[in-house]
């Protein structure tokens, strides 16, 4: 079947040729490793090593972003997609980040007692 894939790829420039099975299997293996890493990261107090509050969740989210990137690039075929596909797929995450600009508001005012993780407020 690999010959078939090559054959198809030769004939059409932007053709969707079938990716080799090893690619999908390695992505899957990487996803499994990262899943174990996420669970492991939740059981270790990473604050002890890197004294940033909420270090664990940052590490876990970083791993989650890595997993999502693997899925988008290889399972969702953006890696060998057209430039327009790259633009469209990328724009979704840009809008997603813009959504979080709402924290400019939350972080710059006191909403009341217990505001923002222990800030007393009501001074």
């Amino acid at each position, binding site marked *: 079947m690999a010959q078939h894939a090559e054959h198809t790829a030769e004939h*059409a420039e932007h053709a969707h040729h079938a990716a080799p099975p090893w690619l999908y299997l390695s992505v899957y293996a990487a996803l499994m490793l990262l899943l174990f890493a996420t669970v492991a990261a*939740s059981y270790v107090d990473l604050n002890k090593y890197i004294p940033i509050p909420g270090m664990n969740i940052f590490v876990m989210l970083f791993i989650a972003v890595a997993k999502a990137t693997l899925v988008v690039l290889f399972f969702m075929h953006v890696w060998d997609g057209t430039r327009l596909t790259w633009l469209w*797929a990328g724009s979704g995450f840009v809008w997603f980040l813009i959504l979080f600009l709402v924290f400019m508001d939350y972080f710059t005012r006191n909403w009341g007692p217990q505001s923002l993780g222990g800030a007393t407020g009501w001074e």
Partner: protein
Amino acid sequence: MSAEALEHAPHAVVDAHTYVAHQFEDRAQQNESYIVGMWTFLVTEIMFFGALFLAYTVYRSQYPTEVTAASQELSVGLGFVNTLILLTSSLTMAFGVRASILKQKRMQLVYIGATILLAFGFMGVKTIEYGSKFEHHLFPGPNFQWPPAHHGGSHGGEAHGAGGATAHGGGGEHSVSTTVPAPQAVMAPASAESSTEQEAFIPRFTPDEITKGRVQLYIGLYFIMTGLHGLHVLIGILVLGAIWLMIAFDHPAIQDFIPIELAGLYWHFVDIVWIFLYPLLYLIHPKPFW
């Protein structure tokens, strides 16, 4: 795949349903529009779930202690099994799309069938999870109970650090308490020096009620986020089931790989949402795996 390529490719089916529509230059452009169209839908889905992730972030940053305590009620193990199931289903889906590009009918049926079965497995685990929440009165509403009945509230009031994931280095033991340090009563000044000043404020809620309300908020977010995700899994089962039947009966609309590719994009998106839900909802704090 251009029409020429289809003619030369072995086993290729060129019929009325794989032609290039008149508004497109060629097949590559037509396929690109299909895929970009699907991505447009997925971007709206990102925004849709994004609002929930935003709400989650706001509440977690506001009430880290209560969020940590409430997440102790979720099973890391069951969430792990579900992550495993969904990641595997993404793999089978990717192979299903591959089989459809290669026009291998039997392999398509095998891989898409496996994806559907795994999706049912995911929903099965979800049912167990939701069942235990209902059993312990951990569903937002008048019957909501906190601290949960099965704990008896005998773990003592050990304080959790701010930021959710802090404190309790490597505690595999069930040392984590569900009893939350009492927050300040509403309207009471945070650092009242004199008792006369304190008398000026009449607390409307007891600290226990405030804790219960905040915990309920988290459980509500859990049900909305995982519930909407579960709804997407159910829709995925319907879409993939329809595609499976169309492949099985050689439906003319499914001769091309594009419908399966688009269903695959949707399915991988559902997987990505879960990739983020798992650490955010389940893995907040060291707690027993099962």
